[in-house]
């Protein structure tokens, strides 16, 4: 079986490059997992829990990843066989990746500061920055939005549904948040 690279262009566009990268990733992960599966199983259960013919916990995962690896190879071959690059819908390009990465960074930062600052404060920061990034420049709207959304969420979830959201690691911030919520609740009931 021979495969030809596309005859004119010697390098692929961004989209196809990403596909190649993905397929290689799939192949390697698949192969590694399939081979090393026994190591990935922590001794925990009682294998003797089943005395007779049993499906060892290695069986299914191993097959799955082995087949995945093989399909990864097929995938790669399929990509390399592509002659008409123009026909491939380019859903990924450098600009898109840049745009999206920044937003993804926002989300990641949000995830990591959340345990330290608590849900309320982290959300305030997130909403403010994200809204700004997405084009909202109206100052008072930004402040209002970023303040009231976490507050409302906290109130609805904690008082009505009794679902508590994480507090800050630092006790002082957590207590501060509680105070603000209480103040607003009182205000709300007075009005």
């Amino acid at each position, binding site marked *: 079986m021979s495969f030809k690279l596309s005859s004119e262009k010697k390098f692929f566009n961004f989209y196809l490059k990403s596909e190649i990268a993905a397929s290689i990733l799939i192949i390697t992960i698949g192969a590694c997992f399939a081979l090393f599966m026994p190591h990935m199983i922590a001794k925990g259960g009682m294998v003797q829990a089943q005395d007779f013919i049993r*499906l060892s*916990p290695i069986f*299914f*995962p191993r097959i799955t990843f082995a*087949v995945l690896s093989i399909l990864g190879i097929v*995938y790669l071959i399929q990509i390399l066989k592509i002659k008409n690059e123009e026909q491939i819908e380019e859903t990924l390009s450098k600009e898109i990746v840049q745009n999206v990465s920044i937003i993804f960074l926002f989300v990641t930062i949000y995830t990591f500061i959340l345990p330290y600052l608590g849900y309320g404060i982290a959300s305030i920061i997130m909403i403010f920055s994200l809204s700004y990034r*997405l084009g*909202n420049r109206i100052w008072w709207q930004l402040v209002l939005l970023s303040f009231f959304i976490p507050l409302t969420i906290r109130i609805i*979830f904690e008082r009505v549904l009794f679902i508590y*959201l994480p507090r800050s690691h630092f006790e002082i911030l957590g207590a501060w948040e509680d105070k603000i919520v209480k103040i607003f609740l009182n205000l709300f009931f007075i009005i």
Partner: protein
Amino acid sequence: MLETFIQGMHLLLRWDIYFFIAAGLCIGMFVGAMPGLTTILALSVLLPVSFKLEPVLGIPFLVGLFKGGIYGGSIPAILVGIPGTAASIATTFEGPALTRKGHGRKALEMALFSSVSGDLISDIFTILLIGPIAIITLMIGPPEIFAIIFFSLVLIASISGDSGLKGAIAALIGLGLGFIGTDAATGSTRMTFGFMSLSAGIPLIPLVIGIFALPEILLAVESRAPRFVSQFIGYSNTGEKLRWKEFKSSIKTILRSTGIGTGIGMVPGVGQVVAAFVGYSAAKRASTHPETFGEGELDGIAAPEAANNAVNGPTMVPLLTLGIPGDTATAILLGAFVAHGMRPGPLIFQEQGPLLYAILMSMVIANILFVFLGYVLLKPFAIAIQIKKSYLIPIILALAFVGTLSTGDNSDLIIMLVVGFFAYILRKLNFDLAPLIIAFVLAEPVEYTLSQTMLYAKGSILQYIFVTRPISSAFLLSALIWILYRAMRSFSRKRT
């Protein structure tokens, strides 16, 4: 028996029952509409509230919560492509496309009416045939469950037509992800790499949010357009309503899905997610115009919605007749029954007949109420979607995080993030994520039931299945025949 029924109806002649059912429906709908909040969560949290009420109020309240939740999940599924509950995943196939075309409201209404119809029919069926259903459910054991799941998988795979290779890869990834965690048969933990948070497997909620919410948010920010919807329709006009003609054309689909859902409801461990997928697949197969599926086809909304609601009726049967819950939601309901002093089980019809009939009827009533309630509550949601992205996206993100945090701990956020990242990439590379999810959901049941079957078979599997378990054989054989048929067809097509 008829007189206990009539006595039960008497119990329903008070207005406060309807108030509580409605309250449950509203709260349920709200909870369902929040991606990440599950009805299970709401049920368990509000369980103590129901303790303080009398049984005839408390239990219908929870029932309303449950039903509202299943529908509620379709709202964000349709409007922004983020399923509010796992059961609405299949609704994301057609929903967002319809919304983009400006038919968001139509889709929401179709979902509402299909859900209610499926639920209603399934409930009535359950009430009338509770005895025979109880017998059937007892006959279903691991070999049957395995066979049914296998059959469903074949059906679902058959409609993934052109995605062929990528579909298979996605499915295998889903399968692999599904194996992470504890192997139920031997108790050993697999592929957790020492992370405690993975020891139960990847929790469904961070997975769903990661696979749907995050990529949707990322996709939405790719384009510079300020809104999700292509035209700003205006706050006074939320899109066209559903026409009777359109609903009528989907009636056959709804009936078919109801049948599927009811059947799956009788099988423990399969659940609403699978029912929705199977319903959708069956509708696409049976449709005269399968090409429209995926581009915004109302039938494709009716099918999964009717199916996932229809599961509810039969699921209650083992609960009521044996006192054994079929899934987590019914387990919580069992707790509610018990705390109210009712003992579901073989003796309940004798001991508390009227109350039980009242509760069963309240399920039917909840559906009828919901048609009106849901219709009214739809409007705000249909409007909300038209808000500018710069407002909407941070809100959606904040809510998505709340959803994950409410049922787990901070480490689930990281899972969500990692999953979301890869899910986005896969989507951009034109992988269809539906096979991934369904494979994930079914990974454990498939392996588990197969293990159990092998244990029961004590070595002679073929004989065990085909000789002693006819139901299971029927499904397995049908699935195999189907596969052969398809393989031969595609073979012969390649020849010509």
